[in-house]
């Protein structure tokens, strides 16, 4: 027994990744490859989000439960960058909106400056309120003009019409800017207050996105976003692709008659094109993830990483050594949130549509937390494996539940309402399952699957 344990201790990273790949391959053989690639791609994106959270929590002990908000900001930036501008709306209300936003920014900045100069609180409040009222006047005029314009199809300003991949960087920048302002306000707080504050702020971000239709159409959704990869239909017409498919399936095609061959080949081309597009996405996502993991690991093992962990483990001692804890926390908060923003932008690019009602804290905040804890907080590869494991369970527990219900159904064919009830509701048990996994890991393996390595150092 102890021999196996030693093996696991030595090679747990390759072992756990091999097991995960094996499971995915098995699903590929028994269910479908398109499904596996879907799980794989979303796991990759979740892994990037989990990496961002791990940098905040695992490196620095910052308890951020506002992940959903940063992911949504990343999503917004996809629209702002890649959509074509709605020229009519820009002509009608663009300048006015710009003035309104500038007024708003001026109000905030003057409030902050007056506060620093030590003016009377009432004067500052007056300035801010008057500024707010003026801003609101211009703002509602501008947003009305924009939203009234062709509300069924547009009703918003559109974006810059740049390639969608730029939006991933931009998503990181937007999230970083948001994190800077949020961090300035909340990072002085104790950990559970920080949690509550970030939870609330992420909700506010979502309210703004849902209600400011002039920005990203609110709950009317933006569909048909630009893609970094070709469309399935384009690929199906390409010569080399058809040749490749017929080469792959040549053994199966050869035994068919001429007429059947063409029909069958068309079907193969259709199916393969779906898989091919998903593979292209996987390529993009893997490159990003690998680059980020490498950078994160280099950072963690650098003097900077040691400083950060020293602060996490003993704030008082680190502060006595002359480390500026607040600015360090702010820095980490910004970096982690930026990574989450990048992942949020990638997610929206992958789905090809932006639907703000999709964003639920359970799915976009707490699930990512479960990934980090289960994977092993403080270990970047742990976050990656945690994301794969948890996302796999999250996706597959629905079908598994229905499969179980079917088995029960075959045993007791009494046709009462119980089976219908179970079939309808078994989906929700995955929340229970997630909670159980989190609690069990926290209690019996607090380090997670891949615990942090040099904790004793």
């Amino acid at each position, binding site marked *: 027994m102890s021999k196996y344990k030693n093996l696991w201790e030595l090679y747990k990273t390759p072992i756990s990744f091999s097991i995960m790949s094996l499971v995915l391959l098995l699903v590929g053989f028994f269910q479908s490859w398109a499904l596996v690639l879907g799980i794989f791609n979303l796991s990759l994106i979740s892994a990037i989000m989990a990496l961002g959270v791990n940098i905040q929590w695992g490196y620095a002990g910052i308890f951020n439960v506002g992940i959903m908000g940063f992911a949504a900001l990343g999503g917004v930036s996809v629209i702002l960058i890649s959509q074509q501008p709605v020229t009519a709306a820009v002509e009608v209300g663009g300048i006015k909106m710009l003035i309104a936003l500038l007024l708003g920014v001026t109000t905030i900045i003057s409030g902050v400056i007056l506060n620093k100069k030590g003016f009377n609180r009432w004067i500052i409040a007056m300035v801010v309120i008057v500024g707010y009222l003026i801003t609101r006047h211009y703002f509602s005029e501008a947003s009305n003009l924009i939203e009234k314009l062709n509300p069924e199809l547009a009703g918003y300003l559109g974006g810059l019409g740049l390639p969608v991949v730029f939006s991933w960087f931009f998503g990181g920048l937007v999230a970083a800017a948001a994190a800077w302002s949020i961090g300035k*306000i909340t990072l002085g707080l104790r950990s*559970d207050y920080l949690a*509550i504050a970030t939870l609330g*702020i992420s909700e506010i971000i979502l309210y703004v996105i849902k*209600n400011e239709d002039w920005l990203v159409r609110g709950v009317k959704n933006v569909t048909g976003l630009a893609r970094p990869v070709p469309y399935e239909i384009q690929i199906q017409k390409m010569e080399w692709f058809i040749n490749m498919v017929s080469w792959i399936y040549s053994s199966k095609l050869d035994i068919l008659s001429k007429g059947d061959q063409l029909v069958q080949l068309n079907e193969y081309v259709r199916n393969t094109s779906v898989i091919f597009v998903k593979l292209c996405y996987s390529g993009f996502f893997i490159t990003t993830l690998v680059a980020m993991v490498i950078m994160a690991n280099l950072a963690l093992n650098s003097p900077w990483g040691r400083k950060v962990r020293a602060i996490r483990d003993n704030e008082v001692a680190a502060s006595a050594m002359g480390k500026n804890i607040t600015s360090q926390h702010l820095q980490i908060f910004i970096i982690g949130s930026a990574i989450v923003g990048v992942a949020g932008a990638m997610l929206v690019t992958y789905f090809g549509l932006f639907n703000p009602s999709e964003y639920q804290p*359970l799915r976009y905040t707490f699930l990512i937390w479960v990934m980090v804890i289960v994977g092993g907080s403080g270990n970047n590869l742990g976050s990656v494996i945690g994301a794969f494991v948890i996302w796999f369970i999250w996706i597959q527990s629905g079908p598994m539940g229905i499969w179980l219900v079917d088995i029960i159904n075959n045993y007791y064919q009494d046709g009462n309402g119980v089976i219908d009830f179970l079939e309808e509701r078994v989906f929700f048990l*995955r929340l229970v399952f997630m*909670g*159980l996994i989190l609690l069990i890991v926290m209690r019996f393996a607090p380090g997670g699957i891949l615990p942090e390595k040099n904790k004793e150092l």
Partner: protein
Amino acid sequence: MSDSIDIINAFALLTNFVILPALSYGSQLALGALAVTLVYSILRFSNFAQGDSMAFGTMLVIFFTGFMIDKGWTISGVPTALLVIPFAMIGTSIYLLSMDRLVYRFYRKVKAKSITIVMASIGVMFITGGLVRFIIGPRSQNFADGERFIFSVREFKAFTGLEQGIALKTSQFLTVTIAIILVAFVFYFLQKTKTGKAMRAYSDNKELALLSGINPEKVVQVTWLVVAALTTIAGTLYGLDKGFAPQQYHLLLLPIFASVIVGGIGSPLGAIAGAFLVAFSEVLLTYAYKKFLIYLLPISLHPNSLVQLIGTEYKYAISFVILVVVLLIRPTGIFKGKVLIDE
């Protein structure tokens, strides 16, 4: 009528659309906030599972209510939900106590950091939310029966002869009455009884309380019992007033936390004050004052716009703006709660 200044009608309008709804919403929040603050001061963590626990308690109430109505065991005029609250309270107590036994007790024993327990409470949140959605379904439902109004707008108008009527919903009346009774009971319990004093002593100084022979496990259990009662009643009253939906209860966590922090975490009085502050600012800031001002101002000054300070869609954001402002200006809350910096 409206060409002169009419203060009585203006305030009748305000009472009907602002004061009564805010009072009942505030009372519901206050009970939830009291539960969170009790858990915080005795068990020393912010309970993220509070909203879902309220959904759990309400779910039990809905089942018992259905059972009672089936059997015909109802009293006319009284919502059946009120009659079954004690049974639901027992159920919720059992649930919360077993969660404490299975989850939280371990972390108390190893003296874990409060943030670890918060994370465990997120696990409990997942489990509770999942169970509720599994058992009763994610859809919203209404379980109020009995009289809907104590007096309706028409009755009020006929009685007073005013142009603007006030309606008092049964759920509003019950909410405020029950909240007052319950809060009075909790304060009496904390101030006067031996167990309550032990709880306060334990909250003030754990080591000293242990030295003077207070049994910590008993204190914790009593806390969960009180929390279960508050949770069930808060959930039921909210459901009677606005209907039951698991997701909505889950989101109640946000205004409840805001109330607790605004009032000063760990301070029961602060939790109540914070709850009313949050509820009143939500309703006051999103109310359209056009009609109200028409009653009050001479005709030349009548407003054309709705005179709404903040759009209704930002209702939930308001509590957080208040929260952030309080955290910046007075981090200990209105009533000085526990300090915000780690000991």
